[in-house]
């Protein structure tokens, strides 16, 4: 109701209201408008579908997160310290991943919860990602074998073979994260590292398998035998090949790879089979086989008791190392022919070189394996 003080507004409104109204123009564009509306309906339907698919995807992702959170909560309910103590199989690839539980094996399924004593074997074409609710993730590569030893305040695992990449969230007070391999123990405090257990190189006769640890972030304690070393980001540790007892100490010191820090040679103890600690900075030569090669890693000369090494061999040692490394790398990647060619080249060019005998052995081994295949 318009107040009296706004009289002219009221009169103006009445004047406009009392205007005669013409009829709207005739509808001459009906078909055009209806077609436009049909298009609009189709577009709206498409948008709805997209929204529904997006919502479904988000809901699925949220469900996974909820499951992971609940899994973490389960760990809490067992009274273990810290959030997310349950270990969940977050994701697997391949078809031959197995869960070893109480002596029996079963297929490893996504979102399964692992318990202490469980083992995980990834298939030849498989991999598995295990995760804790606190963000810690373990990625098992193909043909790896991991066992869960403890999920309490100390999370312990044993790696018997293959590669394991661990991204460990920052640990709380009193918490530990330890990965054991047959010859070493790796302890971390919030870091990213890889650990691998592989067959030892053929020239390392006194070692059947060796471990390699590479640190990406944080710090890692590696214990092997009576030694302990702290690895910083970018550093790699590998089980060293113990020198033969008959090797001359001077030869050992001379042939061991020496990095810029000079610590490598100093850490190799001649005349003993005791495992020594060896740390390699990025870019330095690695004594053992490196499962995570960044650059071709030269292989040290094997030590043969009482065999004089020609001076020529020393002058071309780097080439021999490269050839042998390339052959081994090719063999690991399944390129047997290439591996044989490299070994043959090594034997042909350096028949009396320090690696020639190992090359011959590797040749025979590859040929035998091919015969079996």
């Amino acid at each position: 109701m318009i107040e009296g003080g706004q009289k002219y507004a009221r009169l103006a409104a009445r004047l406009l209201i009392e205007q005669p109204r013409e009829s709207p123009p005739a509808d001459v564009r009906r078909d055009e408008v209806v077609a436009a509306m049909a298009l609009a309906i189709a577009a709206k339907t498409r948008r709805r579908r997209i929204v529904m698919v997006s919502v479904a995807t988000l809901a699925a992702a949220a469900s996974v997160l909820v499951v992971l959170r609940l899994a973490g909560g389960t760990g809490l309910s067992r009274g273990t310290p810290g959030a997310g103590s349950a270990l969940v199989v977050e994701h697997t690839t391949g078809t031959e991943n197995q869960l070893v539980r109480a002596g029996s094996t079963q297929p490893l399924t996504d979102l399964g919860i692992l318990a202490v004593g469980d083992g995980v074997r990834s298939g030849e074409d498989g991999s598995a990602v295990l995760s804790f609710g606190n963000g810690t993730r373990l990625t098992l590569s193909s043909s790896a074998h991991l066992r869960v030893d403890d999920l309490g305040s100390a999370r312990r695992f044993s790696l018997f073979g293959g590669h394991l990449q661990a991204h460990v969230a920052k640990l709380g007070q009193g918490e530990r994260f330890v990965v054991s391999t047959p010859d070493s123990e790796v302890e971390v405090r919030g870091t990213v590292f890889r650990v691998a257990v592989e067959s030892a190189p053929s020239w390392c006769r006194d070692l059947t398998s060796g471990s390699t640890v590479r640190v990406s972030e944080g710090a890692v304690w590696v214990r092997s035998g009576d030694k302990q070393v702290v690895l910083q980001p970018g550093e790699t540790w590998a089980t060293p090949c113990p020198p033969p007892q008959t090797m001359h100490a001077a030869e050992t010191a001379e042939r061991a790879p020496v990095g810029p820090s000079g610590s490598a040679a100093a850490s190799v103890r001649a005349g003993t089979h005791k495992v020594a600690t060896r740390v390699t900075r990025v870019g330095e030569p690695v004594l053992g086989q490196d499962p995570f090669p960044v650059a071709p890693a030269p292989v040290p000369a094997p030590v043969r008791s009482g065999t004089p090494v020609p001076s020529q061999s020393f002058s071309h040692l780097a080439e021999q190392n490269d050839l042998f490394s390339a052959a081994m790398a090719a063999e690991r990647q399944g390129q047997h022919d290439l591996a044989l060619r490299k070994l043959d080249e090594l034997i042909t060019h350096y028949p009396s070189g320090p690696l020639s005998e190992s090359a011959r052995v590797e040749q025979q081994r590859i040929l035998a394996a091919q015969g079996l295949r």
Partner: protein
Amino acid sequence: MAGPFYDRTRPIVARTVHRLLGASDSDFDDLVQVASIELLHSLDRFRGECSLDTWTSTIAANVVYKHIRRRGLERTIFAPELAADDVPQTAHQRPVLRGMVERVMQHLGQMVYERAWTFLLHDVHGYSLDEVANITGATVAAAQSRLVRGRHELHERIASDPDLAGGLDVLEDQS
């Protein structure tokens, strides 16, 4: 689906656009089409709290409101076509009334846009405050405030226009 829906709503859309935009505006057909499609898009929000015709009218008015605001000062905000060509008065009165309507529209065109539209939508075209708020994208409180201020501003403008004020006084006396 589009055909029957269009046939059902088109009369309301066309009438609303025609009333607010003015007769024979060149944008009439385009706005009817835009309003019809907008009606489709907004149908999800229709909850039956008012009739479909009221809902249709509100959506169409919103389209016109936004359209005129967008075209802004390029053209007269309130098209002269809104003024009556055929006011049902005597032959003597007809030109006088036409002139008064034009003067009122001129005053409205010089007012704050939102106030003038709120006045027109509410006092002339009969939309409720809720509907005006929907059409203009404002809160009900803001719409009410604009209405009061719009009425006051229009009153002051006409009061300072002696010819128009006198003509409206005469009309009031005759009624």
